[in-house]
């Protein structure tokens, strides 16, 4: 029977090779737990509650007076901005001569369930900015926010414009009603009050669910087939495992912050309408009057360009630029495109204003 089959012998060969790769994989590659995601040397210069302010050690002589603080997202951890020596966002900026700080939000516990937007914006972020101003003897800093970190940074910039010399918003979550992603659909149908009342912080398991509905077959099947097919390619495998480890490590989100996030951004869409309150202060985007650079990715399936771009038109800045890149949410910050195009453009823009 087998001899009469029309199956190409190469197919059998491919199946056997794939099976061999699966068996050999543990001998060839490290387990994700064994991979250290801390790439660029840094020191922790300030710790408040669970948050840490990281200061990256200069790789070349610092060329610009204004330091840059990066406000990373609340989902997953800051490591994606320094994931691999060849794709590190932080390393690239250091090599361009910038002084770089990063705010690590840490891992909230049950005790932190009452932390809200006010704590993040007027507490942790403001304390970091003040620390940097003090350390570097500068009047103000450059601030970059990524994803949900850009929402916090946007609110901060609107409330404390005197502290921000230049603002870079990378894939910011701004206009929840215009967001066309699956995440936005889930958020709009969520009873955030009930969730926080009963379980407190937003658990990581729930975040994993939300991510699993994004391109489930490409991300859930094809990606791993490619991994085993390329098991001999050290560079590919190393990068793959680093990103996988990063994806699998997401901290819980404090309950009150999550509640305000879902209700004010996705359900009521208050931020873009200048109706959102942080603490007892109204956030008016028109107060953002310093130079601003908005970066969006056309293929972003986590924060759609429609959700981010309204920020560019809502602020009061006259010196502002909007760039749309042909990549995705992670591709914009950790890819060869980010190294060759996104970062040089941002660096040039910042350099002229720092």
């Amino acid at each position: 029977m087998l001899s009469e089959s029309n199956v190409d012998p190469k197919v059998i060969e491919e199946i056997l090779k794939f099976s061999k790769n699966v068996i050999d994989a543990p001998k060839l590659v490290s387990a994700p737990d064994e991979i250290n995601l801390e790439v660029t040397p840094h020191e922790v210069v300030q710790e408040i509650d669970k948050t840490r302010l990281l200061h990256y050690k200069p790789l070349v002589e610092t060329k610009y007076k204004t330091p840059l603080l990066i406000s990373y997202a609340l989902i997953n951890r800051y490591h994606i901005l320094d994931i691999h020596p060849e794709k590190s966002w932080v390393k690239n900026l250091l090599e361009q001569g910038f002084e770089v700080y990063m705010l690590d939000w840490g891992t909230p516990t049950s005790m932190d369930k009452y932390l809200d937007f006010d704590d993040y914006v007027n507490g942790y972020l403001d304390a970091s900015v003040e620390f940097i101003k003090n350390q570097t003897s500068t009047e103000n800093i450059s601030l970059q926010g990524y994803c949900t970190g850009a929402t916090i940074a946007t609110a901060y910039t609107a409330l404390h414009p005197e502290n921000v010399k230049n603002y870079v918003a990378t894939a910011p979550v701004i206009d929840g009603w215009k967001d066309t992603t699956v995440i936005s659909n889930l958020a709009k149908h969520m009873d955030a009050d009930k969730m926080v009342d009963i379980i407190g912080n937003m658990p990581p398991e729930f975040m994993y669910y939300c991510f699993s509905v994004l391109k489930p077959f490409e991300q859930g099947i094809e990606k791993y087939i490619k991994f085993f097919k390329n098991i001999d390619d050290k560079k590919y495998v190393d990068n793959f495992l680093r990103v996988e480890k990063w994806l699998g490590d997401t901290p819980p989100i404090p309950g009150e912050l999550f509640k305000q996030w879902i209700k004010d951004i996705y359900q009521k869409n208050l931020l873009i309408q200048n109706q959102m309150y942080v603490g007892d202060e109204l956030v008016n985007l028109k107060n953002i009057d310093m130079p601003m650079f908005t970066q969006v990715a056309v293929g972003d399936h986590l924060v759609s360009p429609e959700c981010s771009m309204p920020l560019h038109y809502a602020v009061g800045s006259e010196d502002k630029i909007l760039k749309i890149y042909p990549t995705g949410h992670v591709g914009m910050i950790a890819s060869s495109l980010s190294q060759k195009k996104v970062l040089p453009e941002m660096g040039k823009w910042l350099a002229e204003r720092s």
Partner: protein
Amino acid sequence: MVSSNSSETLNDPSVETIDYYKHLSLFWTDIIHLMSSKPQALTSIGPMRAFAANSKKISVELIEINEKLFEFNKYMTEYYNQLSTTWGIAQKKVNLKVPEIPQDVEQIESVKRIWIDIFDNDFTELFDSKKFGDNYGNLVSKELELTKHWNNITNVILQSVNLPSKEEIDEVYKEIHSLKKRVSKLELKLKKEKRKNAE
């Protein structure tokens, strides 16, 4: 017998049956509780007395968990129904595009690509739809209600052994948060003023 004034309830035999068993269960729980609490009080000391007194609360929670499970299962069934219907439709689309079994490596690769693209598109469309969002929202809501009952049972047990309940711990967390917030705002204000004065 159980009393029910709602005409809708009277017309629905399944609701009548559930109410009947709920009533039956509560009746016997109450009676047994009343019958047993006095002898228990005599024979027990310390925290076990409190546990005996709280046994009714646990029974009520368990009965309500059963009711919620019924609704949870309804939304869960709909959830899997939506997934399997979408799977079926996507597979039909793949079958139409790929009528023949692939024979070589290139063909297998292109069939795989077609399969992934069609499945990703159809499932993304589902996850993006209002009907999925509504049902998923209800499903999560019911799951949370089940968790709430579980928390309530845990609270009864915690209090029976003189430990603080979840709500009491939450009050402490809230107080700590409020104090920390006030202190850190004062510290920040002080730092800013010091810096201003130094300049």
